[in-house]
């Protein structure tokens, strides 16, 4: 399955997986982040339930230094 993550295409071997699985695949577990899927925010509590499909566009963001 191919997904667009932070503007870049990424392929995954898994056929069907959740946002929670994606976070684990990307080695981001335990990090403070927020995720938008196709322009809609996915609340953290729904990571296990929201299933991803081919071509989904994801934004994964965190807090960085800024003024």
């Amino acid at each position, binding site marked *: 399955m191919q997904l667009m993550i932070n503007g870049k295409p990424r392929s995954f071997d898994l056929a069907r997986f959740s946002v929670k699985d994606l976070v684990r695949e990307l080695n981001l577990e335990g990090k403070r982040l927020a995720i938008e899927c196709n322009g809609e925010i996915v609340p953290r509590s729904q990571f296990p339930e929201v299933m991803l499909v081919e071509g989904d566009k994801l934004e994964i963001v965190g807090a960085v*230094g800024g*003024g």
Partner: protein
Amino acid sequence: MSKDIKVSDLLKIAGRSYGSRLLVGTGKYQDFAQTRAAIDASGAEIVTVAIRRTNIGQTAGEPSLLDFLPPDQFTYLPNTAGCYSAEDAVRTLRLARELLDGHKLVKLEVLGDPNTLYPNMIETIAAAKVLVKDGFDVMVYCSDDPIIAKQLEDIGCCAVMPLASLIGSGMGILNPWNLQIIIANAQIPVLVDAGVGTASDASIAMELGCQGVLMNTAIAAAGDPVLMAGAMKKAVEAGREAFLAGRMPKKLYSASPSSPTAGLIA
């Protein structure tokens, strides 16, 4: 400032009180340790953070800004720096709210030009309307136009933050007259955001009657950021005290010397 005054003279924003009237950014520092040291020296309680794409593939244990500025010690002010449309700004702050567990206090800025970083007030107003309706407490970066500032207040923003001069310019307070009009008309806190270059600029902003000052580059780009952070803390406090004290009127000259006119030797 005596302890009693300090306790009673708090900065109140969106129902919360803060002892420090200096708000600082967290960008442009050498590293997180310097960021933390400068913020400690500034005494700031509210710190701005930017929302950016997570670096995918970074090592799992890599430290993050939040490790150095624990959320239980500071009030985060997520910003929309780098946004050029109302839509992007709203999206960014909704992500920030999710990121920070429902946090409502935000800094809205929508830029209009990548060279000057001058704000686009039409897009800013559009975003402010959506965000206020959506339950955010919006501190809004704006031009120093008194009419725009009043409109942002009427929309329901919790603070207006006109520029002193352009972001990162360090040019100081270029239009104190407009700032005075904005302050005189506002029922919500007015903070100067952007353009402060050195300590005296921060004092001038506070002497004009600003409720606070927000800055980043003036500290981070100083030769010694930690030393400048301490200077800014004192400058904001000094300016605030001078404002509260009420300055003497300016006169071209005075026939009233400070020493007695009687008792002079003949």
